[in-house]
């Protein structure tokens, strides 16, 4: 009496598993990989031993039915990809089969999912048209509690200015805390700059074997197991692949003392530490998940060759989408808008980082990497104003004169001259940096040349700066941003006007037939 139903049950499960595997390989494996570890070496979220497929299957059913949008954390990694909804493609039986397969493969040992469970969620959310977000799902279906990675974790915070790891044993801690999360985090300090943290705790090793540890840190850290140093990344530097270190050590079963010394000077901070058993792919994070910043994207600094400029065409913060960044050797940079026909940003120091746009799908706008960023205006560079106090247009279509971006040409030093038309008037717009002796940056000299082929002048105003603008010490001189001086010279009769309660500097122009020129000097 008891045997027969059991056999039927097993047969049923086996059948569902078979279909589920085929469907998984057809519909899911391109991203999640046939081995469940996430395709492209884990660029996509793993399903093997993922807490997302443990326990109540509702979370996974919802993701499959309606898709998933935005950042999510799986294990110790954050992903920001788009999972397309499959509810319209896959039947309840197929989804149940796929999830049953996923939940019983690659080390997962979870109960089967029935078509009825899928049907219930499908009908309860039949009106839903948007994908789920990780945040929503975390509220509705919290991930199962996991054991603390490090037992009895204690943090001690130290204050001091260091360029490399000090001997913390010789120093006096400012504070001591027990970290119940069992994971280390740079945010466990009471300050953002010039501090150190020493963590002590116990690491439980489930079975004897070789274990691989990996450390990445901004700025420096060292890891000790049973008092022996196993990893060190020292000095000042960012979280970056080239500062990542790994080490494989043998460990016996049981608890082992672990200590991590960490210091942060100034700027960005963070520490990532994880380990796995050699020969497996399942990392255990010993550091806190990255939080609001999401995943750490690799840095890909874009730098000009000596004596040259380098360009970067992509989405740049505070510039319209048709943005063109130019980084000049020596640490002078600008971003030109091909929509607005203006220099929207100038800054000094490092140019820009390609990591944001060149990793995964490359969402979002990139900020300049350097300093002294002056936002000269993310609005049209020119406008025909109906009255002197008329508000400045927001869109190029409202400028009152047709804008026509024609491209640019590069000189031998790869420095661009932008070319555009304002109606019939042809404009060249060139910026060249100026350096003093010893290479210190003095200025960016911008020359704008108008060629008016017509017989009547073009009356148009040019936006010179917005936001923080103040009259300077001499005629035609202004301070823009915090400490950048703008000097205006024009061979056309033109008088700059500070308008909009002093927040906007505009140069009314009467561009005469023939050729005329304006010189702008941005000085630091």
């Amino acid at each position: 009496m008891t045997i027969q139903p059991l056999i039927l049950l097993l047969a049923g499960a086996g059948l569902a598993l078979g279909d589920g595997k085929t469907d998984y390989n057809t519909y899911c494996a391109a991203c999640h990989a046939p081995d469940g570890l996430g395709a492209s070496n884990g660029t996509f979220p793993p399903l093997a031993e993922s807490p997302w497929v443990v326990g109540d299957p509702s979370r996974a059913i919802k993701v499959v039915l309606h898709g998933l949008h935005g950042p999510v954390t799986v294990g110790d990694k954050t992903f920001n990809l788009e999972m397309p909804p499959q509810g319209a493609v896959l039947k309840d039986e197929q989804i149940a089969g796929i999830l049953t397969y996923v939940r019983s493969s690659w080390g997962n040992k979870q109960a089967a999912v029935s078509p009825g469970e899928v049907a219930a969620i499908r009908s309860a959310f039949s009106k839903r048209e948007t994908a789920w977000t990780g945040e929503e799902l975390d509220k509705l279906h919290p991930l199962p509690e996991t054991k603390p990675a490090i037992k009895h974790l204690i943090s001690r915070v130290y204050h001091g200015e260091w360029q490399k790891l000090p001997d913390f044993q010789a120093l006096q801690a400012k504070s001591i805390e027990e970290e119940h999360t069992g994971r280390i985090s740079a945010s466990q300090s009471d300050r953002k700059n010039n501090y150190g943290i020493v963590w002590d705790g116990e690491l439980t090793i489930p079975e004897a074997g070789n274990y691989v540890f990996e450390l990445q840190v901004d700025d420096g850290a060292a890891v000790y197991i049973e008092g022996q140093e196993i990893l060190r990344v020292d000095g000042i530097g960012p979280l970056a692949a080239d500062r990542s270190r790994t080490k494989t050590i043998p460990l016996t079963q049981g608890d082992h003392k672990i200590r991590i010394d960490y210091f942060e000077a100034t700027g960005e901070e963070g520490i990532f530490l994880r380990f796995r058993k050699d020969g497996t792919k399942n990392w255990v994070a010993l550091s806190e998940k990255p939080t609001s910043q999401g995943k750490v994207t690799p840095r890909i600094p874009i730098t000009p060759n000596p004596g040259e400029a380098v360009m970067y065409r992509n989405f740049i913060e505070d510039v319209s989408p048709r943005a063109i960044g130019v980084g000049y050797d020596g640490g002078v940079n600008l971003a030109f808008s091909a929509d607005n026909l203006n220099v929207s940003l100038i800054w000094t120091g490092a140019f820009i980082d390609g990591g944001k746009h060149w990793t995964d799908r490359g969402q979002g706008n990139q900020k300049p990497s350097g300093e002294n960023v002056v936002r000269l205006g993310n609005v049209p560079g020119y406008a025909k104003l109906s009255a002197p106090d008329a508000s400045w247009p927001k869109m190029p279509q409202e400028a009152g004169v047709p804008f026509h971006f024609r491209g640019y040409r590069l000189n031998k030093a790869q420095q661009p001259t932008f070319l555009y038309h304002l109606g019939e008037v042809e404009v060249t717009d060139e910026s060249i940096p100026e350096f003093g002796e010893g290479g210190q940056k003095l200025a960016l000299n911008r020359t704008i040349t108008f060629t008016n082929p017509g017989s009547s002048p073009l009356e148009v105003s040019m936006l010179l700066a917005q936001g923080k603008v103040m009259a300077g010490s001499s005629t035609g001189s202004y301070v823009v941003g915090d400490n950048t001086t703008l000097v205006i010279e024009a061979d056309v009769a033109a008088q700059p006007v500070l308008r909009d309660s002093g927040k906007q500097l505009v140069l009314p122009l009467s561009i005469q037939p023939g050729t005329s020129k304006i010189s702008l000097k941005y000085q630091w």
Partner: protein
Amino acid sequence: MKSLFVILAGITSVSAAPPAQSDYYIREEIPLPPNEVMEVSSIALMPDQKVAVATRRGDVWICEGAYGSDLSKVKWNRFAHNLHEPLGMFYKDGALILTQRPEVTRLVDTDNDGLADVFETLGSGWGIKGDYHEYAFGSPPDKNGDIWVALCLTGSMVAESQFRGWAMRVTPSGEVIPSASGLRSPGGIGYNAEGDLFFTDNQGPWNGSSSLKWLKPGSFQGNPSGNKYYADTDAIGPRPVDPNDKSRIMIERKRIPQFVPPAVIFPHAKVGQSPSGIVADLSNGKFGPFEKQLYVGEQTHSQVQRVCLEKVNGLYQGAVFHFLEGFEAGLIPVTLDQEEGTLFVGGSNRGWGSRGSKAFTFERVRWNGKIPFEIKEMKAKPDGFELTFTKPVDSKIAGDPQSYSMKSWTYIYQSAYGSPEVDESVPKVEAATVSEDGLTVRLKVTGLVQGNVHYLDAKNVRSSENGQLLHPEAWYTLNEIPK
């Protein structure tokens, strides 16, 4: 012992080794410049057997030696830096012309130092808001010299920027003219042998499955998200009526005269999951027996599919077959050197996974002159289909209707993402008549369903030399049944 041996020998003689792609086509990776990330997004053929390659990071490189017998000797020179994700590039009159996200740009090296120094904007002005999915795929020039740019929807779902979901035509004088609506998420754009324009569109809202679509000037391609921009242009007439949700293409195309249905649907997961670049075979037999057919890249499955098209009652339709596979990353551009018969492909799996596990690849495929046994063409007839094979068939097997099986289905035409296969039916092959030369088989089929994909499995068919089909399956989209 003796009887066992006999049985084994018997098995060996009936099943000759199944054919493999490598018996006919030689696929080779072309070495890339070391330490560079070469996520190939565009390929353009240049004079003197140079090949220009653009990357998703926006670099343009020129490769010499890509045709050579010793690929280790290839030389690479960087021509331009950090453009905005160029998708579509061609060479014309001494310049490379490429489509970046914001514009179509002409790159010229005026001083012959090997670096582009003029970047002339030929056309721009379509909406772009900084969304990562607002891709722009540019075509080579059409008969009039116009470049067509297929604009992906914002986030591949909505049209938050002007003319998202439209195809724009950039004329030689720099005009940018809205020329077709209803696109969703293009993966490539190119011409058929007759010079008509096609693009691939990916499964999603209003696309039950991915497909190859005929980008007929003035047409509506099925996704109404961008139709609000008819208010901003009178270039292609008034706004079409909106399609009804959860309907069928066959029903809605009668309501919406501008709606051109997909020419060839690529059934999701069975054929591929993300079709990409398109190129027609005009090589006159230099790349095998598929003269005038289309080769279509596939990003997720790292493949190239083959398409034969025909025009029936004014609409394009036809069949898709599996063709080449095993590429090292997800394919994006596909280009054929028609003189040399060399196919160049490239791709990347950044952001979207692929079967090929490398982050990026650049490869060539050449034909070795041996004819694979394939269904060369599948054409619709009033009462069935006509199959043309690349080699004579075994008439006895190919003349038996039992050697074929068919299924048909369509997709729900809906705003939801994708669709299951619905309205399934089993068309019946009643008769199979083999031509005298053994190259053509006329299938008489009952139960054809207009609008459905008709799937044909011919795995039992053998060549007159007892060879198996390299790819025995075909998927024919029957928009129209010829009279």
